[in-house]
């Protein structure tokens, strides 16, 4: 049951984009087309679930026994950077098209706060190893959902007659704001009603 709770929490209640504001740069940058948004979303799911797992192992099996937990920020960011490099090489090999579409944003997953964020949050919440993995996966899934909704919206917005000053980023932010208002409906009471 706790796993379902974690999934619902990270996908809906504390959605990384709409309530925690983690990973906004790619959210605004790559959400112009649905295809690239989907690619980015899956890349984030992949990296964040593996990152959550690997950082849990490193934190609890290396940093805690050696009593050097103050090095967590440095260690986590290096592990994530290496992981992103791996994913980048994989995507380049498997689907060069997708690789071209994601362009400069793939290396930028390294500096995507969502991935480092989930690693730090999992440590802070003292999740177990499977819980960390599930949290990483569902945080990525929440990101995918948000960026998918946003890109579908923006493809339609492109055809609308928007005042000049609002074109591009401003209207994207305002639409995201309205979506975030909708997401305020998901809260802890809802979770309690759902799974008791």
């Amino acid at each position, binding site marked *: 049951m706790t796993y379902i709770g974690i999934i619902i929490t990270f996908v809906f209640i504390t959605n990384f984009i*709409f309530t925690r*504001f*983690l990973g906004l740069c790619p959210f605004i940058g790559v959400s112009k087309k649905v295809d690239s948004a989907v690619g980015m979303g899956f890349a984030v799911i992949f990296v964040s679930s593996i990152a959550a797992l690997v950082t849990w192992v490193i934190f609890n099996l290396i940093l805690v026994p050696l009593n050097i937990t103050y*090095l967590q*920020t*440095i260690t986590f960011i290096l592990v994530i950077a290496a992981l992103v490099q791996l994913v980048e090489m994989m995507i380049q090999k498997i689907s060069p098209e997708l690789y071209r579409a994601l362009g400069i944003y793939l290396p*930028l997953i390294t500096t995507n706060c969502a991935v480092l964020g989930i690693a730090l949050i999992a440590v802070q919440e003292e999740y177990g190893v499977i819980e960390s993995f599930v949290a990483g996966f569902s945080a990525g899934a929440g990101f995918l959902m948000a960026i998918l909704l946003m890109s579908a919206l923006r493809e339609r917005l492109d055809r609308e007659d928007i005042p000049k000053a609002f074109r591009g*980023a401003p209207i994207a932010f305002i639409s995201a704001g309205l979506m975030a208002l909708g997401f*305020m409906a998901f809260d802890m009471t809802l979770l309690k009603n759902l799974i008791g």
Partner: protein
Amino acid sequence: MKIKEFTKGLFRENPTFVIMLGLCPTLAVSNQVVNAIGMSAAVLFVLLGSNIIISLLKNFIPDKVRIPSYIIVIASFVTIVDLVMQAFIPPLSESLGVFVPLIVVNCIILGRAEGFANRHPVSSSILDALGMGLGFAMGLTLIALFREILGAGMITLFPLPFDFIDEKGQIFIPALRDAPAGVFIAPAGALLVIGLLKAFFNQIELKQEWIREKIRRLGKKKPFSPKEKKGAEA
């Protein structure tokens, strides 16, 4: 010439409103002015430190491993800030939470390292860091002011010895205090405020362009050609 390195970060290349980098902390910690100021100070310190170190090391870091090296330099400064904040200002550290270690992935800092500090001398890098850091602080504080005034009807600062600030460092705004628009404190409000502010600055930009265009056209007309004069008289 050099002063330009400082001022460009404040307005023309403002990190928050023009190049739009480092948005995650901007939106997440802008619910109280005091958080915004604390975050700005932390970012300014890290940016200054990393720009100085990277500028000093620019001839020693091999090109292939430069990004990981920059990240390590930045992460060390972030760890310093994080530990200092936990030790000396625990309430601020508590309310900023996970966003203090997340300064590592603030795109402004890596952006300045990669885009400026690795090919400029130390003195310009310091000016650049100060300008960018203060530009970030301005943007963040502006958003926080809007959100807290509209959403909670008050401004939270540090406890200061002035009459209008109470012992918790809060300034209350009379009419808004009774009926604040809570949506601005909620996460949705942050996105709305930054969208509207960005549109506002775009509008100013467009207006200025329009005026410049007008002046340019007038300037073209002024050296009067006889043809045009005739047309005007007719």
